[in-house]
């Protein structure tokens, strides 16, 4: 140990630079600076840096000022025209999207790229399917979407979008981060966040009708959905049964939809008590004990395609006495009907209502 210590402490000797050399160099540099002052005064490194910084700052300021303007005009626009307002079918048409950005269309959108499976379904449902040129990989309904060009849902590439030469792009919650970049690339982007309620879906339908010029078809669809939703709610309000307790199962390790999600909202609208009531995250994982303790009457399996069924649920340890198992009210549910904020959401809503209140919907 002791033998090694001094060796460790003294670093290998390096030739020390002669001090005088340093001073000589500095003096020489000073002389050079004075000599070439004409050049150096104009382009010293520090000044170049300062200049660069100034340019950057100016750009930032201008950008900030512009976005301020945007915000002001956006809030003004919002005050006299809300999302989905369809006063008339004339163009140019301007509306404010979810990011409070003003989006203008000089004519009905003819070359649409949709990054939102819900919006794609809406466009096809209102007869604007042939105005869509590309959609994300999850836009798989209706069957006609198979023929579309594909863009990436999760990490969309503005270059790819530019090569498609679209006149209108629809982005949704997954692409919030990318939307500004697409705008800067000169693309006409509308950010339509996933709606938090059925009303939001209906609003989106009316808006896309306006955007595509298919106002009548969109309004007819929206009115029909509104009627069907109201009918379901009216039927349920006639029930004097106790509120059904529901487990909306996403995975077999008990991930579920919390009360503040779109699905949670539909359950509330259906007068059901969500087993995940009280959970803090939007899609919480529940403990098996909490689920059994809450004793759901109905289990909705959106993980049926992964092999879950009444049998697998009944076979889980501790589940044999759960009301939904005893009463055999464990049902598979197509997640696309209820997760996707498009026209089929009403089908999902009616399906859930029929599963929760079998006596009222025969």
């Amino acid at each position, binding site marked *: 140990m002791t033998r090694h210590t001094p060796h460790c402490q003294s670093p290998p000797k390096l030739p020390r630079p002669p001090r005088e050399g340093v001073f000589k160099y500095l003096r020489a540099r000073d002389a050079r600076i004075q000599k070439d002052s004409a050049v150096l005064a104009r382009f010293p490194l520090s000044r170049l840096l300062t200049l660069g910084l100034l340019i950057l700052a100016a750009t930032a300021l201008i950008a900030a000022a512009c976005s301020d303007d945007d915000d002001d005009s956006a809030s003004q626009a919002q005050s006299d025209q809300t999302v989905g307002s369809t006063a008339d079918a004339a163009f140019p048409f301007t509306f404010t999207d979810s990011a409070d950005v003003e989006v203008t269309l000089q004519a009905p959108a003819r070359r649409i790229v949709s990054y939102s499976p819900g919006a794609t379904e809406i466009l096809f449902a209102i007869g604007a399917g042939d105005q869509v040129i590309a959609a994300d990989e999850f836009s798989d309904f209706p069957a006609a979407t198979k023929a579309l060009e594909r863009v990436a849902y999760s990490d969309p590439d503005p270059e790819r979008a530019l090569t498609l030469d679209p006149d209108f792009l629809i982005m949704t919650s997954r692409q919030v981060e990318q939307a500004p970049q697409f705008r800067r690339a000169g693309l006409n982007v509308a950010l339509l966040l996933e709606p938090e309620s059925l009303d939001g879906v209906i609003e989106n339908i009316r808006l896309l009708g306006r955007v595509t010029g298919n106002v009548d078809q969109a309004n007819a669809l929206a009115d029909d959905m509104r009627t069907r939703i109201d009918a379901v709610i009216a039927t349920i309000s006639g029930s004097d049964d106790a509120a059904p307790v529901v487990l909306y199962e996403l*995975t*077999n*390790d*008990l*991930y579920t939809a919390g009360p503040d999600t779109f699905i949670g909202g539909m359950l509330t609208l259906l007068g059901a008590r969500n*087993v*995940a009531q*009280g*959970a*803090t*995250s939007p899609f*919480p*994982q*529940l*403990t*098996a*004990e*909490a*689920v*059994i*303790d*809450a*004793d759901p009457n109905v289990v909705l399996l959106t993980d049926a*395609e*992964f*092999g879950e069924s009444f049998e*697998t649920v009944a076979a*889980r*340890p*501790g*589940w*044999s*006495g759960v009301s939904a198992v005893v009463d055999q009210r464990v049902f598979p549910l197509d997640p696309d009907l209820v997760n996707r904020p498009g026209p089929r959401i009403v089908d999902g809503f009616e399906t859930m209502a029929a599963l929760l209140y079998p006596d009222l919907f025969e």
Partner: protein
Amino acid sequence: MTRTGATAPWRAIRLRAAVAAATRSLRPAGAGAILLLAVALLALTIGAADIPAGTVLKMLLDKLPFVETGTTVPDTWDRIVFEIRLPRIAAAACVGAALAYSGAAYQGVFRNPLAGPFLLGIASGAGLGAAIAIVSPLAINSYGFGWVPVFAFVGALIAVSLAYFLARTGSGGGVSSTTLILAGVALSAIFSAITSFILLSGGEQTRPIFSFLFGGFNTANWPRILAGLPYLVVGGLGVAVHARVLNVLQLDDEQAAQLGVNVTRTKLIILTSASLVAATAVAMAGIIGFVGLIVPHAVRLVFGVDYRRLLLVSIFGGASFVILADIISRTLLDPQEIPVGIVTAIVGGPFFLYLLASRRVDHA
């Protein structure tokens, strides 16, 4: 015949010494066992459902032969205690014990306090293996066990052998600590990256991997525990029979070899066995960090460095620690579940730092 007369007292002294030694090594184990029992009982009485602790104890007593407490409880309570909480506690105990035990073995083989299933890339290797098993057509479903532990074991073995061979210094089979940890960190990153790639590229059928990697005991059930147990026992025994040699291995490899230890072969057997144990833990409950690192340290700081004792007490320590962590993970955000790995890190980290600090004070 004077010889026999002379040996008699020696024999008595030797016997007494042996008994004393046994007590010395058994006392910590006994303390560990009592701790584990207490923690398990505590875990059995706490949960999302409000079941009084006294009632739970009576329900337990009722299960014993010849005991009748005359308590009647709702059917739900019975199911919650015996079909939800009990298997969950058993799974947490198995996984905690396995991680701590394998961690102790790795630290012993590598003579490196930083070695552990997590840092050496073994957990990520096992995770990758398990992920491949889940997406491969071989897998039955995520409830069954099937090929998951086998693939996890292969992944763990690949990780540990890569780390081992990369860190081996040219002569004598010694292992460089720094290289070992660096290699482990790099391997860990590589395996995690590949797992993420599988997750991203595989689409919908990769969803079970997500829940698997987050870890936890929410879906614990007896069949799965029983399926994992043989692997744990075989791997555990593989390490246990070499516990004494692990003590010798704390010397130089050369010195150990002079004492008659076949260093390379022994290390290989211990590493393989420990990897089997660690991989089974990953297959049972996903990737749970920190347990394999800190529990053996805590045990070592409290009870000393004899590996026979260290391995034994690590079993109880690891089991108790993970059961406690699981109590928090299933009750803190009730009715919600927190991934248990988050709890082991948040609770275990500061405790470990405290132990480190207090130990330094002792030395000063």
